[in-house]
């Protein structure tokens, strides 16, 4: 029965997208500090010559969902895909402003950041349920991928039958282990990249044309 339900959902999504005549929306999701905006900037710079937003080492630098429209990526075999890229705040179940003060922010600034971050995460979850057609799930390859938030988010994405590519980011760092991420999510393609240095992004682009085209 699930086969018929899934097929019906896919047809419904296709018809909705067709009649609305809108470009599909590709969401970049993942936990805080996984390098989502760095990767989004890399993709946008490579194909449009622009950027999505600023990056920093302080968690929740991206606090509002940001969108860049009409990005067209062409693969080596000539196939291409056009989408709006949606960079989202890092998804978490807790935000404590004291954490930001450890990075040198004043209390008021830290509280403001926490408030904006909570609104941003809520907005990102809402978008995932309503407006996203495919997901690039970005993980920091130096961190434990078996965290509850990752398991939960990938489960939510799967339940919506959205195509998902998992990016094992930060492979430029010595502790990076894309293999650990592959073992955590064997049901999805995992592409090791360094968004910062641009290492292996060609493979990501190739997969994106296959997966989201």
């Amino acid at each position, binding site marked *: 029965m*699930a086969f018929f339900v899934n097929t019906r959902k896919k047809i419904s999504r296709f018809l909705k997208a067709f009649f609305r005549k809108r470009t599909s929306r590709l969401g970049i999701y993942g936990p805080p500090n996984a390098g989502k905006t760095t990767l989004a900037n890399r993709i946008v710079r490579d194909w449009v010559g622009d950027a999505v937003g600023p990056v920093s080492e302080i968690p929740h630098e991206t606090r509002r969902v940001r969108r860049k429209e009409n990005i067209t990526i062409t693969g080596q075999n000539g196939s291409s895909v056009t989408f709006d890229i949606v960079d989202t705040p890092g998804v978490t179940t807790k935000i404590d402003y004291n954490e930001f003060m450890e990075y040198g922010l004043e209390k008021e600034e830290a509280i403001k950041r926490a408030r904006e971050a*909570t609104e941003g995460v*809520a907005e990102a979850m809402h978008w995932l349920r309503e407006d996203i057609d495919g997901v690039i799930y970005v993980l920091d390859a130096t961190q434990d991928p078996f965290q509850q938030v990752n*398991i*939960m988010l990938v*489960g939510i994405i799967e339940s919506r039958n959205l195509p998902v590519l998992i990016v094992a980011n930060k492979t430029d760092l010595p502790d990076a282990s894309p293999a650990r991420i592959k073992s955590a999510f064997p049901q999805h393609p995992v592409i090791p990249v360094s968004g910062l240095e641009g290492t292996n992004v060609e493979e990501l682009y190739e997969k994106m044309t296959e997966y989201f085209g």
Partner: protein
Amino acid sequence: MIQGVQIDLISAERLDKLTMMEKIHLILDEVMEGNIVVLEKGLAPEEQSKLIEVTMREISPDGFAGIEMETYPVKEAQGGFLGKLFGGRRPETRLTVIGPANQLKTLRKDKDLISAWVSSSR
């Protein structure tokens, strides 16, 4: 007066009778009071997504900092003959522990064990 941390164990039967928003408010009301909630049957992905969204809207400086949540890995339930024929196995939600982020810390977790440390100080 009894001091300590209240733990509410909520049965699958009770959860099944509630709507998505009723479940979310039941969990968050308890957790915001400083209680730990153990769900006999976890939440569906749609409910988890909504729980994160509503949790974010309840977080406040020097107040509620969010939730800590742990569950066992999802088990694939047998979907019977038709399920197998069409590849339609639906995942089975499992026991879930939810508590205030500033009081509940998971010490150890593997596929069949969750060890949690609960602090009574808020």
